[in-house]
């Protein structure tokens, strides 16, 4: 049994179960009360406890037991659910969650955790009365002695205390040697009660090969007996050499049964049924164990890790030493292994190392492009083919390397369920959170940094956005407010929206405040978007009262700073009286992009592929008009155009045919006029030094296969600059046109 993997999957599974519990509890609280939810919560707690028991994680078992007892009373209708109980159970979930790490690592609990546990147990005890739990009558505050980790299968609690399981596979020569399996069964029947005998005839060969004097039978025997191990073992003394005998004493770990199943030649499912039938295992335990085994195999297959059994385990399983003797020693070894496991299975890698890897892959991409170019120049077919093959692999490597950093945003968003609940309670507001797009992937480093800004926004929405219930009802809105978190991909960016159906932003109030703070001159006329953007200014708050949560005017500016640090940007839409939506747009990834290479005179520029919409020919007729007016008519739509040479301030010789590359970022679209279209190109972003940071809409540089340097156009920056700066007449036209298409 590979405990390392097992414990890791226990932790992961418990966390998921706790999430389930939390969500179900919150659903119950929202009045979606039905028995199924309570059952689901109970099952989750039960599984955490049961599996914890198998590993001997006593603090978890101990605590969860009382939680389970409470749930059992709820389930049985002995107790009515109220908000206090839900709150208590939620806090209990938190407590179990915080127990997981230290307990599974075999560490001692710190005083704070112990105190927290005691307080919660006290709280639980109030609801439990003296009935205690359904299965264990021990009072809650008696410390549980440290037991060997061979706790009786806690899962269903059905395996009785004197249940032995004996697995026999007789050797071929047993009958010839004058011994008959029948006599062993008769002997066992004298030692106790044969609860179940399953005779396995699978090994019986086809008639021609079947030797009538050989023995082909195997048995799985459930024996209820108070006999000592020696007595039972003694029965098999004379056949020990040519038989496979496995004896599992009472209180064997589920994992040992599972291992037994796996090691025996017969079909796993069937053996499992036999064990369940003989009451050695419950179905729940069997399922759990088999699942564990599968997980483990998967891990082993993925990691190619050699599975080393502990000597003690082998001894127990070969029935040489009683389990009790070995378990103490095992304990010790396990603790050491457990520690190793948590280090091994999930490798923590310094972000920098990952960056270095991606950098290196980037270099490889460049070198590969170079090789391909040279191969084409040399014109040798085999070399071209080989280079193409190599490049394909490099491309895959690139994707894998980038994939290492991509994670789904779902779990980050789900966490807000609890935040919304807690904050809603605190403020006395009924709020429901809707989450969509949880499967959207983005860079791990980005996810880590987006949590705080999102937290600010969600809290803000709850505190300022959502009106008190009375006010909502007066306005004819449903009492229960709605907050949405929504994530999706859009043209190479990820968009995360935080929306509420609250009171919206008061444009006039913000403007008045901005004027009083001198951010805006009196009488200055600003478009709505810009007024709303004022709330991202440091120290800006329009909240009439300062609450615990927000309203101190710190927050929104921090949100913007954090987002911009990730090369993203924040937008705010609001309608007075009906809600606010904050949209955060972030780049998906950082280091390597697919680019589109364009030429401007002798120079090469790269436009990120995911912002490219299409390429148009810029015919002579349109040209003069376009230059004059600054926009093109594309299929009936206005497309503002920019001459890249003008934007960058480079002089290029006139060419006969120009092309327009249509780019898009978020809601802004524009056409860039370039001299030449050179096609797709994998690009490794080499950041420019800080010195060049503000120069022009250039996002970085890259090296082409030929060794030339190409600059990468910062499309979002370009579009924004054009939108914001209205100093040139050309720019103004573009800006108007941009606004028209937005």
């Amino acid at each position, binding site marked *: 049994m590979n405990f390392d993997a097992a414990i890791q999957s226990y932790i992961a599974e418990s966390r998921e179960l706790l999430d389930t519990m939390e969500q179900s509890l919150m659903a119950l609280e929202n009045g979606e009360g039905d028995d199924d939810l309570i059952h689901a919560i109970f099952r989750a707690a039960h599984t955490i406890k049961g599996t914890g028991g198998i590993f001997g994680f006593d603090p978890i078992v101990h605590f969860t037991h009382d939680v389970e007892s409470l749930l059992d009373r709820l389930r049985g209708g002995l107790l009515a659910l109220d908000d206090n109980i839900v709150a208590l159970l939620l806090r209990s979930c938190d407590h179990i969650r915080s127990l997981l790490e230290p307990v599974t690592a075999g560490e001692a609990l710190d005083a704070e955790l112990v105190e927290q546990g005691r307080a919660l147990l006290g709280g639980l005890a109030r609801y439990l009365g003296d009935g205690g739990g359904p299965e264990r009558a021990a009072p809650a505050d008696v410390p549980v002695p440290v037991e060997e980790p061979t706790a009786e299968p806690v899962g269903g609690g059905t395996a009785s205390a004197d249940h032995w399981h004996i697995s026999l596979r007789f050797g071929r020569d047993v009958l010839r040697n004058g011994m*008959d399996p029948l006599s062993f069964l008769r002997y066992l029947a004298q030692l106790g009660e044969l609860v179940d005998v399953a005779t396995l005839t699978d090994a019986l060969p086809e008639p021609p090969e079947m030797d009538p*004097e050989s023995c082909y039978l195997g048995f799985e025997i459930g024996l209820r007996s108070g006999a000592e191990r020696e007595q039972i073992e003694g029965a098999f003394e004379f056949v020990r050499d040519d038989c496979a005998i496995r004896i599992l004493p009472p209180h064997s770990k589920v994992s040992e049964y599972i291992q037994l199943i796996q090691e025996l030649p017969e079909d796993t499912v069937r053996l499992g049924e036999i064990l369940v039938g003989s009451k050695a295992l419950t179905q729940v335990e069997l399922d759990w164990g088999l699942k564990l085994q599968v997980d483990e195999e998967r891990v082993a297959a993925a990691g190619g890790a050699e599975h080393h059994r502990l000597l003690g385990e082998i001894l127990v399983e070969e029935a040489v030493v009683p389990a009790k003797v070995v378990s103490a020693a095992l304990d010790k070894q396990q603790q050491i292994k457990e520690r190793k496991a948590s280090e091994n299975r999930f490798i923590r890698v310094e972000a920098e190392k990952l960056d270095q890897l991606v950098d290196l892959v980037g270099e490889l991409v460049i070198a590969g492009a170079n090789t391909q170019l040279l191969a084409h120049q040399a014109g040798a077919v085999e070399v071209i083919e080989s280079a193409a093959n190599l490049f394909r692999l490099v491309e895959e490597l690139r994707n894998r390397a980038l994939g290492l950093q991509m994670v789904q945003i779902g779990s980050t968003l789900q966490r807000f369920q609890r935040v919304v609940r807690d904050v809603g309670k605190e403020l006395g507001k009924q709020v429901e959170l809707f989450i969509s797009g949880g499967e959207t992937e983005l860079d791990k480093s980005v996810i880590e940094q987006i949590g705080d800004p999102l937290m600010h926004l969600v809290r803000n929405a709850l505190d300022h956005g959502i009106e008190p219930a009375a006010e909502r009802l007066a306005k004819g809105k449903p009492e229960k407010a709605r907050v949405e978190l929504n994530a999706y991909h859009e043209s190479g960016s990820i968009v995360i929206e935080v929306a509420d159906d609250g009171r919206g932003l008061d444009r006039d109030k913000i403007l008045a405040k901005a004027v009083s703070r001198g951010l805006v001159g009196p009488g200055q006329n600003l478009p709505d978007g810009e007024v709303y953007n004022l709330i991202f200014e440091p120290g800006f708050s329009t909240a009439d009262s300062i609450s615990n949560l927000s309203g101190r005017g710190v927050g929104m500016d921090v949100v913007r700073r954090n987002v911009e640090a990730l090369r993203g940007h924040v937008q705010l839409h609001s309608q007075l009286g009906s809600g606010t939506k904050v949209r955060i747009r972030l780049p998906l990834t950082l280091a390597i992009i697919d680019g589109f290479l364009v030429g401007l005179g002798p120079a090469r520029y790269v436009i990120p592929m995911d912002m490219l919409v299409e390429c148009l020919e810029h015919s002579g007729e349109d040209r003069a008009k376009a230059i004059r007016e600054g926009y093109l008519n594309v299929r009936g739509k206005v497309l503002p155009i920019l001459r890249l040479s003008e934007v960058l301030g480079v002089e290029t010789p006139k060419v006969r045919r120009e092309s327009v590359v249509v780019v898009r970022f978020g809601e802004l679209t524009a056409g860039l006029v370039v001299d030449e279209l050179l096609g797709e190109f994998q690009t490794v972003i080499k950041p420019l030094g800080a010195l060049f940071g503000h120069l022009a809409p250039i996002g970085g540089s890259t090296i082409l296969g030929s060794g030339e340097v190409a600059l990468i156009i910062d499309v979002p920056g370009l579009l924004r600059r054009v939108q914001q700066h209205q100093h040139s007449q050309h720019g103004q036209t573009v800006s108007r046109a941009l606004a028209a298409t937005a």
Partner: protein
Amino acid sequence: MPIVVETLDNGTARLGIGSGMTIYEAAGLKADLLRAVAEHPELDIDLSEVAELDTAGLQLLVLAKREAVKAGHVLRLSGHSGPVREVLGLYRMESYFGDPVVLPAD
């Protein structure tokens, strides 16, 4: 080998097995049993005379049953004697053969 096959009125073949079904008789029994199973689409094995059954004997019955099922033939065990009942009971194999076991009145 005291093994007798007779055909009953209804067309079923009936095979009577002598007193011993043990490792000593097994080699001979195997061939007879298998042949009887192969030859008769419907075969009744009368175990009333069996005074001794051991694991080797049981294995042969299992083999015969399996071959019968494979060939689409019917194989019935009947007239289980005391020793047969004991072995089948101990091995919990009654349901494997699926035949009604008639307990004597005494």
